[in-house]
C-alpha cells in the first residue's frame, strides 16, 4: 500500500524544493499572506458558500425567505417523525427533572455539570453514546488568551477578523472573556494539557491568530476534554442521569410558550417517551452528515442537524445558516482516510502546502475559508492539483518539514493519532507528505442566542455548534472547543438559574407549535414524505435499497 508509483514520482518534486523552503522558514520568511481584498476575491470566486447552485429559499418558519444549502432546507422543511395528534402525553412514560440537556458532546456535558453545580437535577439525553460527538474529533486545540503577550482584546480581534467582521460582537466578547476561565476550569478537572516543565501552557499559533494561544493535549485535545467532562458527569450519578440512545425529536412547550421538556425516541426499541423539565438546553451539534454540496465530511455519524430542526419548529430563529466551514486540510488519500481531518496544528508546526510542481501557492495560516478557497483555486482553476487514483483532487501538506524544523520525534509526539492513521496504510508522514483537500467541517450558523445562551423561547437555552453568530461566517481553529465549553457552561448555569427562579412549575406539555409548523408546511406544499429530525444518515447503497422489497424507511431510518 502507500502512495502509487505515479504519486511517488510527484513527491520527488516536493522533496526537491524542501531544503530551500525549510531555510526560508528558519529565516522567518513566509509565503506572503493575502490582503483583505485578495481574501475577499478568492472567497467570492472559489468558496462553496458563494456558489449560487445547491441553495434554495426556505418557505416556512422564522427565517422564511432566506436562502440556505439545499440539503439543510430538506430537513428544515420537513414533517415531524411523529404527527403531534398521535402523541398522547397521558400514556407515554414520563421522566421529570429540573434541567434537560439534549446532546452528549462537550457542550451538553459542560451544561449538565454547571446545571448540577448550581443545584439542579439534570437528565442528559443523547441519541448515541455519551461522548459520541464532534468534540472528540477536535484535535488541534482550544484558544484562550492567558499569556503575558496576549489578552482577550487580541483574541477578540483575531476572532472577528477571521469571521470577516460578521460575528455577533457580544458573543465574541463573551467567548474571549471566558476563555481563560474555561481553560482554568478544565485544568482543575484534571485535564492533561501540554505544558512546559514549570506548568506554563505550551501554546501555538493557529490560522488567523496574532498571538500563540492554542492550548492542546497532544493531538487529542477534544477527546481529552470529552473524557474528562464525561468522567466528571459519571461521578455525579445522583445529580446527572444520562440517557443514551435516546434521541430527542421535539421540544415541548407549555401553554405560556415556555420550553418544558422534550419528546424522545428510544433508538433501539423504537418507543417514544417524555422528559418534563423546567428548562431545556439544546447542545446537539451541527449538520456535517448532510454532506452539503456532496462534500466529504470530518463530522461524527450523528451530525444531522436535529437540534436546528427542533429549535426552529419551536420558534427559534437561525443565524448565519448560509455559511459553512470547509476545513482546508481533509485527507484526500488513501481512500480509507478521505474526509478525515488533518489538524491545523500540522501547519502551525510549519508544514507548507504545495501544488503538483512542489511549489507553495498560499500562506499556511490564512483563515480556514480563505485557505480552502485557495486550495480549490489551485486545483480547479489553475489545474495544479494532484489527482488520486479514484479521481479526487488534492495538494501536498509537507509534514516531513516538521521533523526538520522542530526536531526528530516531533510528529510522533505532537501528532500521534495522525501518525498512526497514515502508518496503517503504509504512509510514513515523517518522510512523505500528506495529500489534502477541503472537507465539510463545521456549521458556522445555527440557532440564534444571547451571550447568556438564551434563545427566543423562554426556558430554552442552546450552546455550541447548534448555535450561530459567535464565529460569523468563518470560525478560527481552537474556537469551537472554546465555544462549546464557554457557552455550554453559560447555558447550564443560566438554565439552572432560570429553573430555580420559576415561580411555579411549567404547565402541561403541548406540541401546538409543531401543529402550527405542520400547517405552514402544508400551505407551502412541502412533500409529505420528507421527515426530520434525521437522527442518522443513510449510507445504504442504491443496489441494496432496490432489493429491500419490504423495508420501510421513515426518513433515513429503517
Amino acid at each position, binding site marked *: 500500500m502507500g502512495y502509487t508509483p505515479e504519486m511517488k514520482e510527484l513527491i520527488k518534486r516536493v522533496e526537491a524544493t524542501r531544503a530551500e523552503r525549510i531555510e526560508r522558514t528558519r529565516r*522567518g520568511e513566509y509565503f506572503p499572506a493575502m490582503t*483583505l481584498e485578495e481574501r475577499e476575491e478568492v472567497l467570492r470566486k472559489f468558496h462553496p458558500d458563494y456558489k449560487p447552485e445547491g441553495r434554495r429559499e426556505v418557505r416556512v418558519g422564522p427565517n422564511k425567505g432566506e436562502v440556505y444549502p439545499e440539503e439543510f432546507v430538506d430537513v428544515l422543511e420537513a414533517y415531524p417523525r411523529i404527527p403531534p395528534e398521535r402523541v398522547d402525553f397521558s400514556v407515554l412514560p414520563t421522566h421529570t427533572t429540573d434541567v434537560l440537556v439534549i446532546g452528549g458532546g462537550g457542550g451538553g456535558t459542560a451544561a449538565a455539570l454547571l446545571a448540577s453545580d448550581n443545584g439542579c437535577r439534570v437528565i442528559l439525553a443523547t441519541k448515541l453514546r455519551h461522548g*459520541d460527538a464532534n468534540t*472528540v474529533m477536535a484535535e488541534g486545540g482550544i484558544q484562550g*488568551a*492567558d499569556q503575558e503577550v496576549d*489578552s*482577550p*482584546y*487580541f483574541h*477578540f*480581534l*483575531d476572532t*472577528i*477578523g477571521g469571521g470577516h*467582521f460578521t460575528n455577533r*460582537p457580544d458573543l465574541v*466578547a463573551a467567548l*474571549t*472573556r471566558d476563555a*481563560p476561565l474555561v481553560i*482554568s476550569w478544565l*485544568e482543575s*478537572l*484534571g*485535564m*492533561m494539557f501540554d505544558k512546559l*516543565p*514549570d*506548568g506554563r501552557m505550551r501554546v501555538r*499559533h493557529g490560522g488567523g491568530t*496574532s498571538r*500563540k494561544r492554542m492550548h492542546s493535549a497532544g493531538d487529542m485535545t477534544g477527546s481529552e476534554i470529552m473524557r*474528562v467532562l464525561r*468522567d*466528571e458527569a459519571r*461521578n455525579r*450519578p445522583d445529580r446527572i442521569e444520562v440517557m443514551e440512545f435516546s434521541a430527542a425529536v421535539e421540544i415541548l412547550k407549555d401553554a405560556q410558550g415556555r420550553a418544558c421538556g422534550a419528546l424522545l425516541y428510544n433508538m*433501539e426499541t423504537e418507543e417514544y417517551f417524555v422528559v418534563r423539565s423546567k428548562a431545556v438546553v439544546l447542545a446537539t451539534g451541527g449538520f456535517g452528515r448532510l454532506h452539503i454540496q456532496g*462534500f466529504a465530511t470530518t463530522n*461524527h*455519524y450523528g451530525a444531522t442537524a436535529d437540534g436546528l430542526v427542533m429549535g426552529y419548529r419551536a420558534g427559534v430563529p437561525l443565524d448565519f445558516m448560509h455559511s459553512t466551514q470547509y476545513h482546508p486540510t481533509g485527507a484526500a488519500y488513501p*481512500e*480509507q482516510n478521505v474526509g478525515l481531518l488533518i489538524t491545523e496544528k500540522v501547519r502551525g508546526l510549519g508544514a507548507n502546502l504545495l501544488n*503538483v510542481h512542489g511549489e507553495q501557492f498560499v500562506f499556511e495560516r490564512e483563515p480556514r475559508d480563505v485557505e480552502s478557497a485557495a486550495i480549490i483555486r489551485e486545483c480547479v482553476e489553475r*489545474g495544479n*492539483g*494532484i489527482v488520486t487514483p*479514484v*479521481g*479526487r*483532487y488534492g495538494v501536498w501538506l509537507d509534514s516531513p518539514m516538521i521533523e526538520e524544523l522542530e526536531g526528530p520525534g516531533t510528529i510522533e509526539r505532537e501528532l500521534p493519532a495522525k501518525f*498512526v*492513521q497514515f502508518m*496503517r496504510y503504509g504512509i510514513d508522514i515523517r518522510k512523505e507528505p500528506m495529500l489534502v483537500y477541503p472537507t465539510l467541517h463545521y456549521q458556522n450558523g445555527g440557532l440564534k442566542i444571547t451571550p447568556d445562551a438564551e434563545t427566543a423561547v423562554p426556558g430554552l437555552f442552546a450552546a455550541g455548534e447548534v448555535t450561530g453568530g459567535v464565529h460569523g461566517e468563518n470560525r478560527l481553529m481552537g474556537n469551537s472547543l472554546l465555544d462549546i465549553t464557554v457557552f455550554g457552561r453559560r447555558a447550564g448555569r443560566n438554565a439552572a438559574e432560570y429553573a430555580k427562579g420559576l415561580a411555579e412549575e411549567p404547565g402541561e406539555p403541548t406540541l401546538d407549535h409543531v401543529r402550527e409548523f405542520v400547517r405552514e408546511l402544508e400551505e407551502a406544499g412541502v412533500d409529505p414524505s420528507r421527515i426530520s429530525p434525521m437522527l*442518522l*444518515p443513510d449510507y445504504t*447503497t442504491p443496489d*441494496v435499497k432496490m432489493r*429491500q422489497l419490504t423495508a420501510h424507511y421513515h426518513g433515513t431510518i429503517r
Partner: protein
Amino acid sequence: MSAQATKKIEVIASGDRPILPEGARTVPVYIMGKKYLLPETLTIQKAIEYAGYQFIRACGCRGGICGACPTVWRIQGDFQLHFGLACQTVIQENMILAQIPFFPANKAVYDLEALEATGEVVAALYPEIMKCVGCNTCTRACPMDIDVMEYINAAMRGDVARAARVSFDCIQCGLCSARCPAQIAHYHVAQLCRRLYGKYILPRAAHLEKRVEEIQAGKYDGVLEDLARMDHEELRKRYVEREIEPLDSTGWEPEDKTYL
C-alpha cells in the same frame, strides 16, 4: 505542466459512500459468520454498510478516535484472534468478524477534589488491579497500540504519572476490559490516573491563574465592551495593524502593550 496536472475533474468530492475504482475486486467477509462479497478496499465499517446494514451502535466518529466500533476477527483457518476499529481497518479475504460496541465495566464514583495522586488512592478505588496476572492480553487487544499492561503495572506500583502518560491515547473502546481474565476495567483506571496527574502532578499554570484573577476583577470588561460596539472600519484597521507574534517567539514582546 504535466498531463496529470491539467486533468480536469467534474465532481470534486462526493459524500461518504465509497467511490469504487472501476472493476474493484470483491472478497468474502463473514459478518458474524454470514458470508458477504465486499469490495476489498473498504474499511470494515464501510463494508458492513455496503453489505446493507444501518448502524445504530458500533459507529461513532468514523475517524478512529471515539471508541464506538471495536471489532474482533479471525481469518478463516487461522487460530489467531485480531482486534481493531472497524472505521480504521481494511477488510481482508475470509475475515470472520463481530463487533463489541459495549462491554460492561466497573467505573468508580469519586470526588476528585478529595483525592491525592497516590497509588493507594487508585488501589482503593480499583482494588481489582492488584489481581493482574501479567498475561498481557489487554495490550494485545488494544487497537491504539497502548501498552495497557504497563500502565496497569505502573498504577499497581503507585506511579500515577507513568500510568497517565502511557495511557494517554486511550479511546475507551473497552476491548482491554473485555479480554482481561482479572476483570480489570483498565480504561477507567487510566482515566482516574490521568485526572489525578493533570490535577495534582502536573504543575499548575501560574500565568493562567493570574489571568483568571484579572478577568474576574473586570480588567478586560471595558475593552471588550468597546470592541463590541466598535464600527467595522475601526475594527478592520485594528485587525490589520495588530502585531503578529513570530513562529519562533523566544523572548518576543509586542511593541504596543496598551491592551495586554
